[in-house]
C-alpha cells in the first residue's frame, strides 16, 4: 500500500539506521533491526512516549503529542505516536 511505500522510503533515506513499528501494547510489529535491540527499544520508548504524552495532556487536555525527538551524541531517535501504533526511526542526521 501507500504506507508501505512511505516506510520503505524512510528506511532507504540517507542516514536512517532502523525503523520499528510498535503496536499499542509495546509489541514490535515491524522492524529492520535485530530482535534483541528491537525489543529493548520498543519497551523503553513505549514507556517514554506514554510519559511524554501524559505530560503534554496533563498540562492541557486538549493538546496531544505529535512527535518526540531524542537527539543523542551518536544519533537521533524519532518517535511518531499514533492512536494505536508507534513509529520509531533511528537516524544519523549528519554524515
Amino acid at each position, binding site marked *: 500500500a501507500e504506507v508501505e511505500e512511505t516506510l520503505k522510503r524512510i528506511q532507504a533515506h540517507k542516514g536512517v539506521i532502523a525503523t520499528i513499528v510498535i503496536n499499542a501494547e509495546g509489541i514490535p510489529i515491524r522492524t529492520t533491526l535485530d530482535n534483541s535491540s528491537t525489543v529493548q527499544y520498543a519497551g523503553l520508548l513505549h514507556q517514554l512516549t506514554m510519559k511524554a504524552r501524559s505530560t503534554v*495532556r496533563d498540562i492541557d487536555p486538549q493538546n496531544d503529542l505529535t512527535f518526540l525527538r531524542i537527539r543523542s551524541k551518536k544519533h537521533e531517535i524519532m518517535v511518531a505516536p499514533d492512536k494505536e501504533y508507534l513509529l520509531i526511526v533511528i537516524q544519523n542526521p549528519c554524515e
Partner: protein
Amino acid sequence: ELKEEFTRILTANNPHAPQNIVRYSFKERAYKPISYVDQMAIHFSLNGNMILKDSDEGRRQSIRLSIAAEKAPIETSAVTSEEAEIKDEESTGDTQAAGEEEAEELGTAEVAEAAEAEEPPPPRVKEQKLANQFNFIERASRTLNNPMRERACQSEPTPCKNFSATANQWEIYDAYVEELQKMERSKEKDKPKAQIAKREEEKKKGRKLTSLESQSDDITKISKAAKIMERMVNQNTFDDIAQDFKYFEDASDEYRDQQGTLLPLWKFQYDKTKRLAVTAISWNPKYKDLFAVGYGSYDFMKQGQGMLLLYTMKNPSFPEYVFSSESGIMCLDFHKDHPYLVAVGFYDGNVAIYNLKKATSQPSYKSGAKSGKHTEPVWQVKWQKDDMDNNLNFFSVSSDGRIVSWTLVKNELVHTDVIKLSVEGTTMQGPEGLQLQTLGCGTSFDFHKKIDYLFLVGTEEGKIYKCSKCYSSQFLDVFEAHHMAVDSVSWNPYHLKVFISCSSDWTVKIWDHTIKTPMFIYDLNSAVADVAWSPYSSTVFAAVTTDGKAHVFDLSINKYEALCTQLVVAKKKNKITHIQFNPVYPVVIIGDERGHVTSLKLSPNLRRMPKEKKGQEVKKGPEVEIAKLDKLLNLVREPDSKT
C-alpha cells in the same frame, strides 16, 4: 420256544452309570457331552487307620509304644488294623445287582465288627501322647468397615479481574469528551426514523469493518505517523537547508552594493519525470508550502505522457500527490476557494480538473473531443469566480485561437467560446466565397485582479490583446508587444494598470495598459521563458531565461539592471521553463526541462522595503506599493508624454 436262545452280553460297563452326562463348558459356553463316563462303581469303602510302619508318624508311634511297653510290658496288644476293602471290579456272572449288594452289606457288617473290636486299644495309647495336639485356630471377625467417601461441593469462584489506571487530567477530559459524544449520538437517534435505518446500515458496515480491521494488524493505520516521520527524516537529512531557509540571511548583501543573490535550497525531483520538462508551477493558496508542478514536453516531436506532482517544502524527497495523464500537461491553476481543485490544460487540447481530496490518480472531470476541447495545446488555464449558478468555471487559452470558458455543470464540463483571436487583416477569400478568418494563437493570458472582466492575452505573433469577457468578437486594445511569441503576461499584483510581458525575443517589457508603448524594456540576452511579479513588492519581479539564468529586478532600486543575475541550472542541456514566487516565504521555485524543480531563497537585498525617513511611520500595505510604482512610472512617463 424253549430252544430259543437268549443272548446275554456281559460288558464291563457300569449299568448304573449314566450314559450321557452333559457338562456346561464355560469355554465354549455350551453344554457338551462328556466323552468318557466314569464306569467305576464303588460298592464299599471304609477308611482305615493303618499307618505305614516306616513313615514318620509310624516311627513316632512305635517309639512311644516301646516306651509304653517298657512301662507296662504287661499290656501288649497286637495292634493290627485291618483294612478291608472289598472291591468288586469285575462283576461277572448271572447274579443280579441286588444279590451283589446283599453280599456287600454282609461283608461290610463283618468288617465293621472287626473294626469296632479294634477301636478300644488305640485310645489307651492316645492317653500317653503329649498334650494339646489340636491346632489352634483363631477365628476373628470384624464388623464391616464402610468405605469412606468424600463428597464435597464448591461454588464457582466469583470472577476476579485486576484493573488499574491512573486518573490524570487528560483521562478525565477524555472521559467527558466520550460522554459528550455519546449524548450527541443519542440525540441523533431521536431524529426521524428514516435516518435510523440508514444509520443501522452504517453501523453494520462499521462493525464489519472493525471486525476485519481487528483481525489483521492493519499497517495502513500508521499512515499519518509515517508521513510525519518521513518529513522529520527529511528535515534531519536536509537539516542545513532547512536552517538556511528559516534563518539564513546573507550578511554579505550589505557589502554587495544593492546586488542580491539567490541561495539554492532544496531540489525536487522524481524519477518518473526525469525525461519530462516542467511546464507549469503553481503554489497552493491555502497551504503555503505545497506547490503543484505540471510535467509535459515542449518538443513538438517528442510528446509523451504527462504528470502532475504536488510537492511540499517539508518533504523534498518525494511528492505528496502524483497524478499521471496520457498527454503532457501544459498549464495548471489552483482554485482560490477550493484549494483541492486543480485545473489543468493538456498538450492535446483537453482540459481537466483534478480533485486532490480523491484518492484516484485520474482527473475528476475531463473535457473531450465532444465537449469542445481545443485543437491545439492549451497554454494557460485560470480559475474564475463562481458564476451566477455557483458553478465552478475557468478559462483556457490555446494556440487554436480560442479562449474558452469551461463551466462545471452537474459533473460535466461545458464549454463556451469567449473570444476568438482573429488576426486583423487576414480574412481570406476561401472557396465559394467564404470568408475565412485565420486565428491567432494564444499563448498566455492573465486576468485583472480587481476588474473582473478585463484580461490580457498574449499570442504567438507577439501581440497582446486587451479583452473583455463581455465582448466576444472585438478586442478592447491591441499592443504590439514583441517580435516573437509572448511567453507570459502578468498583471502587477498591486498596481491596477501595470502588467509585464516576456517573450522569446529576449525582452521583458513592462506596460501601462492605457499606454501603447512599454514603460520599461529589458533585454536579457537570451530567450525569456517566464516572468513573475513578487507578491511582497510591486516593483520586484523575476525573469528566467533559457540559458539557465534567473534575473531579479527591483525597479525602485535599479531601473535598468537586474539586482541579481544568477545561473541556476547547468547551462548546457538544460533550460529553465518557469518561475514562481512563494506568496509567503522569500522563496522562488524554478522549473527546468529536466524535470527538476529548484527552490531558492531571495537574499535580503532583493526583498528590500523602502526605507522610512526618520520620524515617519513605516507605511505598509498595498497602497504603499502602488504609490511606489506610480512614482516610478511617472518618471518614465513624463519623458514619453513630452515626446
